[in-house]
């Protein structure tokens, strides 16, 4: 916690989620959601202290190679095979403020679309030098970055011939448990995006566009790695100026 800036901690409740912007629980084009979606309405309530607060992680948990997927699983002197890229961006809240000290975790398949997971049976080969996970903590401006291999598309048993677009999974902690978010990042120009039933769980095309990272030529490093920029927006907090005062404690 000492890693966070000395700004006064924010204690306001979060903006209500726009659940028409997020995918609904029940989205039958994505078959697994059929039996894993609640049928009853959610119980809606303004955030309490249990949701306004949340865990914050210190930079001490981050190892030297945690944000370098090209090397963090590779044998000494070797590196993962594939298109070398940098993924970077900012974590902001809905008010446009940077979220500093936010833990960002990510995972992905290798260049051939193969995950290193015992349940994965796709015949594309494992890369002995690629594990597929990384993490970082945003700086005071909300910025994060990591190096990786651009993941391949991969087939999955949903429809007869469904393939996921190239994607990187993201898990983000803000400062409150109500901000907890898992999402997926896609790549500019990938025609697979618009065929995917998981992408298609999101009803609004503008919301889908928010998940597509742009090729960031300005930050591409010559003779080394191209860059993609992916900004993430977490729920904003209401101003605390007119919050109800807590009493009796």
């Amino acid at each position, binding site marked *: 916690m000492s890693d966070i800036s000395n700004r006064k901690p924010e204690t306001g409740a979060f903006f209500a989620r726009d659940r028409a912007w997020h995918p609904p629980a029940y989205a039958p084009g994505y078959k697994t959601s059929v039996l894993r979606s609640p049928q009853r309405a959610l*119980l809606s309530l303004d955030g309490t202290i249990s949701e306004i607060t949340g865990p914050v992680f210190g930079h001490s948990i981050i190892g030297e190679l945690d944000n370098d997927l090209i090397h963090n699983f590779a044998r000494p002197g070797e590196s993962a095979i594939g298109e070398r890229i940098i993924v970077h961006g900012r974590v902001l809240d809905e008010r446009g403020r940077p979220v500093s000290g936010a833990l960002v975790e990510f995972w992905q398949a290798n260049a051939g679309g193969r995950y290193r997971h015992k349940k994965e049976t796709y015949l594309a080969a494992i890369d002995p030098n690629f594990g597929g996970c990384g993490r970082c903590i945003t700086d005071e401006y909300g910025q994060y970055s990591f190096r990786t291999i651009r993941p391949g598309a991969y087939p999955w048993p949903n429809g007869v011939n469904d393939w996921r677009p190239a994607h990187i999974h993201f898990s983000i902690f803000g400062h409150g448990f109500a901000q907890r978010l898992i999402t997926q990042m896609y790549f500019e120009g990938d025609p697979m995006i618009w065929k995917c039933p998981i992408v298609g769980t999101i009803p609004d095309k503008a919301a889908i566009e928010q998940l597509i990272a742009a090729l960031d030529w300005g930050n591409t490093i010559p003779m080394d790695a191209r860059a993609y920029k992916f900004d993430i*927006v977490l729920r904003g907090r209401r101003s605390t100026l007119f919050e109800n005062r807590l009493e009796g404690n």
Partner: protein
Amino acid sequence: MQELGYLKETPSQTAGPYVHIGLTPNFCDIGGIYAQDLGSAMVNEKTLGERITVTGHIYDGTGAPVRDAVVEIWQADSAGLYNSPSEMRGAADQNFAGWGRCPTCAEDGVYKFETVKPGCVPFKDGRTMAPHISFWIVARGINIGLHTRMYFPEEADANKADPLLARVEHGERIATMIASREDATYTFDIRLQGEKETVFLDI
């Protein structure tokens, strides 16, 4: 008219079946990247409070256990303080993380946390909320993480006065948020869909 200028929240997507690679790599045999999986230990020998075990299953709409979920919990310490910068009422127990993460077992679907029983925390209007643990569940087939709470069966009076439980319109559904107890072990099963469906929160 001026634009309000607010950004839209990044839309959620499912965590997918390989969520463990990112969140609990050691659990899925990707060793050597992180020393240990984050959230695997909530307490140490100095943590204050009553030690408890919280365990259970997550069931889908057919009653089958979900064996590829990840469960995260967030709770106050034994004195009712959160280990968070947004906690303004005092300093929480520094030997208690307050947050834990556990994948459901790939064979039988069980999750399990070793933690302490949380103290009471106040509702916004000053009323007391009954002791509770916040849950967040992600998995393949879950498009946006599901929030719920676990309450304690021995706190019948506090549960009756709890402002959140009081908002549950159909009283019999309150039982879906109350764990069962045997000694220091609480079993909290979560039913995603159908009969005895757990109350999930938009909070």
